């Protein structure tokens, strides 16, 4: 299923796509994760990536970051093949190696987003400090700058990670499950911060989520990954019973509750683990 539903959300459609995937196959060893994925993302779009566990949501990010290569098909990021260390992409992984009782200040981590890839002895930290301060301000985390990471709440930590990804002024953000472990209020607050970045800076943003509901009002597009394939389009087109049933090849129901929240029944693997 491809880009069948152009829509108007202030996104300019005359520019080259930020991401274009054409019949991409990929997997680990001999196990395919994507058997045939075709989709595209335009610059400045806010995209939710959802789907059952193990469908290949994190795989998508690994492909875009150039950490993993497709088996076949073509994948382009800003018109070029993905490469590791692309400064145009900011990334927030699902897990961080950071020690839970690390007393390193939030600002020190954010600053590494600017300086961490530079070798040798650094003599002018002033520019990195300024870049870190700008990134912290952009996510509303200036008051957290001096606090140790160990004292931050889950929502505060996600803001710091977002600032770390933002510090080089990337044109694309890849956020892997930033909302998991946040209660609904904190999740909505974080989505608001991300949405403001998308609107103010035109950053193309892909956000992997388990639950679409905190996001649904801000989204330009949904990429739904299941069954080795990908469906993409505006939420109203993709998140329907017929569209998802076609993707899975089995009946899937999309239900709406009284507040407009979506529930997808039949698609999720109830015994699935946490790996996306």
């Amino acid at each position, binding site marked *: 299923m491809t880009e069948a539903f152009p829509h108007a959300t202030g996104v300019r459609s005359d520019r080259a796509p930020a991401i274009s995937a054409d019949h991409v196959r990929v997997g680990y060893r001999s196990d395919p994760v994507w058997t045939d994925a075709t989709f595209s993302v335009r610059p400045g779009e806010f995209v939710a990536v959802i789907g059952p566990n193990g469908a290949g949501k994190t795989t998508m990010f690994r492909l875009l*970051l150039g*950490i993993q290569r497709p088996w076949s098909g073509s994948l382009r990021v800003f018109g070029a093949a993905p*490469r*590791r*260390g*692309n400064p145009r*992409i900011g*990334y*927030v*992984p699902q*897990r*961080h*190696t*950071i*020690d839970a009782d*690390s*007393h*390193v*200040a939030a600002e*020190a*981590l954010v600053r*590494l*987003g600017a*300086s*961490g*890839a*530079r*070798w*040798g*002895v*650094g003599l002018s930290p002033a520019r990195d400090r300024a870049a870190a301060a700008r990134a912290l301000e952009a996510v509303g985390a200036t008051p957290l700058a*001096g606090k*140790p990471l160990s*004292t931050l*709440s889950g929502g505060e930590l996600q803001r710091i990670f977002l600032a*770390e*990804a933002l510090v080089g002024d990337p044109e694309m953000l890849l956020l892997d499950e930033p909302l998991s472990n946040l209660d609904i209020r904190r999740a909505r607050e974080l989505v608001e911060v991300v949405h403001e970045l998308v609107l103010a800076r035109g950053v193309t943003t892909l956000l992997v989520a388990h639950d679409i509901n905190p996001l649904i009002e801000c989204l330009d597009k949904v990429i739904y990954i299941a069954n080795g394939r990908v469906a993409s389009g505006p939420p109203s087109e993709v998140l329907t019973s017929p569209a998802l049933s076609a993707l899975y090849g089995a009946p899937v129901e999309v239900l709406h509750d009284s507040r407009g929240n979506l529930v997808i029944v039949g698609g999720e693997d109830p015994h699935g683990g946490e790996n996306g």
Partner: protein
Amino acid sequence: MTSDQIPFQWNLVTDLRTMWEFPFMRNAFEAGTMIAIVAGIIGYFVVLRRSSFAAHALGHAGFSGAAAAVLYAVNPVYGLLLFTTGGGALMGLLGRRAATRDVEIGTVLAFMLGLGLLFLSFYNGYASEAYSILFGEILGISVSGVVFTIEAGAVVLVALALVYRPLLFASLDEDVAEAKGLPILALGLIFMLLLGVAITIAVQIVGVLLIFALMVTPAAVAVRLTRRPWTGMLVSVAIALFATWVGLFVQFYAQYPASFFIVSIAFAIYVAVRGGQSLLRSFAPRANSTPPADPSAATNSG
């Protein structure tokens, strides 16, 4: 030791001057100072990367190397260096997950100690060599040993300065560092090699069994007390230097092994900081975990 008759004057200046009249004490202080600086800095990364058990295990690998060197009448430092850097390279190549896998490390560690014991049983000489490798014997360090220590320490410090920020980034946030294009595996390998060299020189003071006290404890305290990597390393070095200097000083006048005092001072600082911090925490509960008490409710109930 020659210092049997040296009386303690209760005057720090005279006591230090007396002590430094002995060349072996000057050697010990020179080597000890370099070792404390290296151990304090690399220890900060050991704690950040949670690979303190790997550091411990490398010391044990070094023991079997040193024992083999003794057996073949080679300077034990070369055996140490070969086995710690070899073991470090192996662990580095297996990746960071291997460096935090304690069952595998523990298994190899026990085997290495046993191997060292076997080498020593072949050796017919006096076992003091083994004793000094296990527990450290800094007063016995030769001038060439001091030179080796300072050269090896300088290599570690220069190399760490060159990889400082990428190593810090990879230690704090590996996945992001990898996405930024940093060579994670190579950084891990470099780190483990440098750790092997650092352990080789540190073994001269505290021995393989007490390597934790210099390599991990000062940094563990520093990580708790500081928020900036730079200040963390400075505090870590300061603690390691303090423990080493006091340990050497006390050994000279009191004839107890320096290793014991170094370990005890590091331990005392660690206990004091941990205790002090939990005491502070019990007086000032975290704002976001406990709701503020309602003062009116308290007065009403009284």
